[in-house]
């Protein structure tokens, strides 16, 4: 029996696992998909919010500020690229009062460094800013991070410290057992743990229901995005927002931690989880983004996608022990600023659980993980030393992103191991460039086959039945 079972390997579950491993606890993470970061953590804006947006006194405000404060150190430990590029909320004529209100709220929330900049300074900060933007709220503590990179790294670090990961574990029932709970998966597998943490994202309402807890509802709100090629990297430096409305923070335009430009998201209420993109979504993004920046190089779009935010009917985070059920802790309804908050949410949940179980500190915990991008950040001389020892680091597989065979092999042999084309892509960027895997996909397909001894019709794009080859061998 494990001490703790975390349900869900999104960014919140990953940080729960990592923080739990700072205590003397046996931890397992049960994930219904075949890889980590399969839901909202895969497809979101990748923004580390400053914290001026959440209502004062809310859990969102509390964890946002705390998460933002932690992010720098966490990313250094985990080897994840994080940039405090600062954010700008733009206001047009007649919107000065709203901007002022946002500034006041930020001050109340404890955000540091906030100030309102005028048109001239704004234009100097962002030469391509839209003509209509007269002033802006500048938040220097705003940042950007790769959301799936952060999730993979946090989960990997938890695993390096002894946490177990069970992918393909879709919990379908929970029953009391001596000293805890037994979870049953659709596959027939079971897991037992003294405490269960519910980090199941959109599925967290269903997970709560398995335990007889129906204290909250989870809704799905889809957000569509367009991603522009790295060649547009210099187009924007800060994360550009418009003034928030009741529907959320609206369409933003930001550089990504990997040097692309991301535009989105839309906001579409949905009856169920659905990541399809709509034609109207693109029109919506284009129309709204033009209020932020002028001459956006949409012709350099390399892909478009959608993510689903799971929000709760409390419209705030749910971070608490279940009132209905002993031994169940919820970290649910984690919509924006969930990515920012994740390190703080994990630390808080782990502390609650450790106290409950009376667990002491884990003296052997190592917070450091080798950066995923370690090889590409070396000098040519250092790379040559690596290649001399491991020649596969001299062999480029993905030409657009210049990903080497060595990096791909590492992605399959580092926690959490990649087993699919998308798994390799999220860990190494192979296939994420301008050709969108046209050239490297067969190569990566081959590498997966030989590493795992798979037949041609067993390689998947992202697990399940997403087989790459559906017509068999000739």
């Amino acid at each position, binding site marked *: 029996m494990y001490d703790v079972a975390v349900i869900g390997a999104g960014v919140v579950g990953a940080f729960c696992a990592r923080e739990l491993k700072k205590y003397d606890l046996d931890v397992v993470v049960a994930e219904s998909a075949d890889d980590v970061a399969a839901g909202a953590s895969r497809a979101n804006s990748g923004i580390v919010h400053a914290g001026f947006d959440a209502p004062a006194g809310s859990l969102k405000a509390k964890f946002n500020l705390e998460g933002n404060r932690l992010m720098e150190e966490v990313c250094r430990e985990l080897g994840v690229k994080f940039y405090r590029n600062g954010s700008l909320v733009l206001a047009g004529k007649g919107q000065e009062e709203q901007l002022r209100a946002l500034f006041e709220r930020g001050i109340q929330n404890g955000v540091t460094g906030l100030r309102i900049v005028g048109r001239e300074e704004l234009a100097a900060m962002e030469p391509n800013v839209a003509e209509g933007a007269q002033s802006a709220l500048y938040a220097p503590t705003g940042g950007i991070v790769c959301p799936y990179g952060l999730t993979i790294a946090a989960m990997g670090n938890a695993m390096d410290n002894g946490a177990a990961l069970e992918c393909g574990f879709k919990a379908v029932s929970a029953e009391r057992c001596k000293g805890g709970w037994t979870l049953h998966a659709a596959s027939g597998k079971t897991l037992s743990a003294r405490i269960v943490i519910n980090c199941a994202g959109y599925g967290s309402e269903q997970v709560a229901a398995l335990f007889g807890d129906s204290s909250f509802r989870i809704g799905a709100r889809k957000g569509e995005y*367009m*991603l522009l090629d790295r*060649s547009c990297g210099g187009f924007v430096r800060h994360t550009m927002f418009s003034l928030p409305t009741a529907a959320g923070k609206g369409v933003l335009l930001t550089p990504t931690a990997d040097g692309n430009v991301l535009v989105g998201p839309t906001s579409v209420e949905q009856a169920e989880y659905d*990541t*399809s*993109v*709509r*034609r109207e*979504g*693109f029109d919506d993004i284009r129309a709204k983004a033009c209020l932020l920046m002028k001459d956006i190089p949409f012709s350099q*779009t*390399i*892909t*478009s*996608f959608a993510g689903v935010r799971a929000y709760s009917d409390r419209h705030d985070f749910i971070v608490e022990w279940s009132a209905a059920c002993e031994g169940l802790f919820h970290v649910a309804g984690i919509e924006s600023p969930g990515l920012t908050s994740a390190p703080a949410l994990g630390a808080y949940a782990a502390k609650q659980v450790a106290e409950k179980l009376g667990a002491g500190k884990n003296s052997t915990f190592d917070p450091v993980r080798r950066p995923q991008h370690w090889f590409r950040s070396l000098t*040519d001389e250092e*790379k*040559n030393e690596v*290649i*001399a020892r491991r*020649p*596969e680091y*001299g*062999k*480029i597989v993905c*030409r*657009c992103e*210049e990903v080497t065979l060595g990096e791909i092999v590492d992605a399959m042999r580092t926690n959490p191991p990649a087993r699919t084309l998308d798994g390799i892509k999220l860990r190494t960027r192979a296939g994420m460039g*301008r*050709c*969108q*895997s*046209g*050239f490297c*996909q*067969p190569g990566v397909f081959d590498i997966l086959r030989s590493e795992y001894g798979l037949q*041609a019709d067993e390689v*998947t*794009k*992202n697990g*399940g*039945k*997403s*087989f*790459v*080859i*559906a*017509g*068999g*061998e*000739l």
Partner: protein
Amino acid sequence: MKRDLVIIGGGPAGLAAAIAAYDKGVRDILVVERESRPGGILKQCIHNGFGLTRFKESMTGPEYAQRFIDEAEKRKIEILTDTFVTRLTDKKEVTCMNERGIFTIQARAVILAMGCRERSKGALNIAGTRPAGLFSAGTAQKYVNLYGMLPGKRVVILGSGDIGLIMARRMTLEGAKVLCVCEIRPHSSGLRRNIAQCLDDFGIPLYLQHTIVEIRGKERVEGVVVAAVDKDKRPIAGTEKVFECDTVLFSVGLIPENELTKGAGIPLDGRTKGCTVDGDRETQAEGIFACGNVLHVHDLVDFVSEEAEIAGSAAAEYLFGGERQKRLIPVQAGQNVSYVLPQRLDAASESPQKLYFRVTGAIKNAVVRVEGGDGVREWKKIAVAPGEMEHITLPPAYFREAEGLCVSVLAQEA
């Protein structure tokens, strides 16, 4: 490391350029190839029809490539395979990476022959899901022809580029059902002979002015929604039709791969997405030449070889004689012409100059008109189409006094 001539890319362009340079006397040649074998994309083009123009015989892609590989071997031209060029400067420094490490070569002349890549589905912003089963046509071609695997059994193809047409036939021959080819434009971008031999002969419908408006399927493609489009390429409501399929191939254009060129700061032509060159195929960086699909996308490899020979010979001339005194005049694309290559011509040249160009739309009974030199010259063409590159040759007497030339294509008056 120092070399006289470094050629980036060991496909048909790079090989032909190397052979031509050798035959003009250059001996210190290095061809850098990122794959394990030379031949480039021809390795996976196992259909025939290559070489009809140049060799007056029909060969497969690998056969065509082999001729050049054999010629290069005969001359003992060094081809460094499994080596990736990571950086190029306008000072002709070429930085390479392979399993032995990273090293920089100082070349005296460079020929760019990196080829092109397929425009990806991601650039199209198609609505719907993003399941497995979406392939660019060339990727599917690699799976079928080099891996011996069939990507899927029921296929819809978007875009009527040549690779898509070839793959419609190829997938059909291997037992897949190709439901249709959709082309958003009113004309195909492929060769007429490919439409006849790859679609018509197999009863595969080509829907012009149609596109895919939605992709369906959660894990693997389950179907697509196809709709007719208006003249602005906007889908027409009410024309949607659902096709159940497990695979979608995209053949929606080719883009010269000029990342190295951009890194070196060499100017590109917005139209061709390749360098702007003169008749020698010399770019705006002295001693750096370009040829093949990295310069502009060709329909026929025969013309790639021809262009590469121009570049290879010119590089040799440059290596032996230094930069020639040139009087460069601009060559402009006029009415109904999308681009002309080369973009600049040496009016002082003593040899005839061949101009390649593409038209913007299909014209029957067309007249090609060149102006700006010694009078107006005209050539009659029975039919021209955007999918087929055209060319004309000008004698030195025509452009000797010219300050600039303009090529246009007009419909012949009845």
